[in-house]
């Protein structure tokens, strides 16, 4: 499984959407990505890539694209 597949599967698992729907999403752009969905998504990403995100990064994680940028700080290339 590629990192992008893992990334989109995390969205799917946390928000209950299809992996293909993840691209382009923004925080609060859909009902499922609310504050609870956000924390579920962070946990899913941490589990998928074996990392622990800093609180500042959790706050800055505002979109699908921003998440890719943040993960690069942890050595994860999507």
């Amino acid at each position, binding site marked *: 499984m590629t990192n992008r597949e893992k990334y989109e599967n995390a969205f799917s698992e946390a*928000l*209950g959407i299809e992996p293909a729907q993840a691209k382009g999403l923004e925080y*609060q752009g859909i*009902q*499922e990505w*609310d*504050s*609870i*969905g*956000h*924390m*579920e998504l962070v*946990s899913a990403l*941490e589990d998928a890539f074996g990392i*622990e995100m800093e*609180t500042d990064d*959790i*706050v800055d994680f505002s979109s699908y694209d921003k998440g890719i940028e943040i993960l690069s700080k942890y050595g994860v290339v999507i």
Partner: protein
Amino acid sequence: MSGRKFKIAKIRVISSVIPRRRILLQSLRDVYEKDNLERIVRATGISEIAVAEDGMTPSDYCAKAAEHMFSETGMKRENIDGLIYVSEFTDYLIPGTVAPLQNRLGLRNSCIVFDLRSGCPGFVYGVFQACMLVENGYCKNVLLCVGNTISKFLHPSDRALRMVSGDAASAILISACEDKENRLGKRLFSDKEDSAASVFDFYTDGSGAEHLMIPAGGMRTPVRKGSTDIVEYDEDGNGRTKENLHMNGMEIMVFATRVVPGLVEAVLKDTGWDKRDVNLFAFHQANKMMLKRIGKSLKVDNDRIPFGVSMTGNCGSPSIPLMLSNMYSGVHPEFKKVVICGFGAGLSAAAGTVDLSETIILPTVRV
């Protein structure tokens, strides 16, 4: 920086009550689609909410929790010499709630009584105040009453808060462990020298007050028809008027994950406890996901950070004693080293180290 260690005051009894009335979250399909409902229940760990009956206040439930404690333990009410009432809500604007509660419970007139207005950190603040009264010799037996009926301030269109917020009350007896006069049956605190001392640490950042607030109804913004009762919707689609509780879930989550781990580490250091030796981290029962997050930051496994309000909801200030009553009724000699930590409205947090190894924890009762 904490002050001196409390060595005499101990939590002796915990009694908790919840209202009979309850809402199964599955019945809230009018405000959430089925898939979303299941997602949120899975994340928060809350499937049922305890809701106060009409006309019932937090002090009504506190009185029931206290009466339950008196009847179950045989503790004599004439031996209570301190009464602290902790809640965000007051029965009257004047006087405070505690004096009528003293009268209702039949406590002696010489009791030291005061209201302590606090939300989710309220239980820890209350234990701290009770310990101070006992440690300095003013009291031998302090009754701490902690109650919340937040359901009365939730708007029907508030999906986020209706899914997690419940009502409850607890009565907690904090006594001088050296006091030999008050036997509870055959149980009496030991004078073991290794009895763990209590230390407390605190954190407040009022710049975040708006993130958990009922804006109208106080002195600053009195309730005004046609002004404070207009429904507005936030980015998540939650409807609220200024007379309802407002919560910015993300800000609360950020506050908790930023502040709580550091505060807990600080109180452990001040007490001289090793994190690995702590038997239980009894934290404010916000939701399962938040406790999991805090546990991850603290590097403590979730078995020691229990979540025990799946059938009641996050009940605010009484949530910690309620969790104990829900999950650990009886006496647990292994609870020698317990960390309590409340966090929320303010934004504020409070943490303390307590020895619950001889505490009688009564099971929660519906009243």
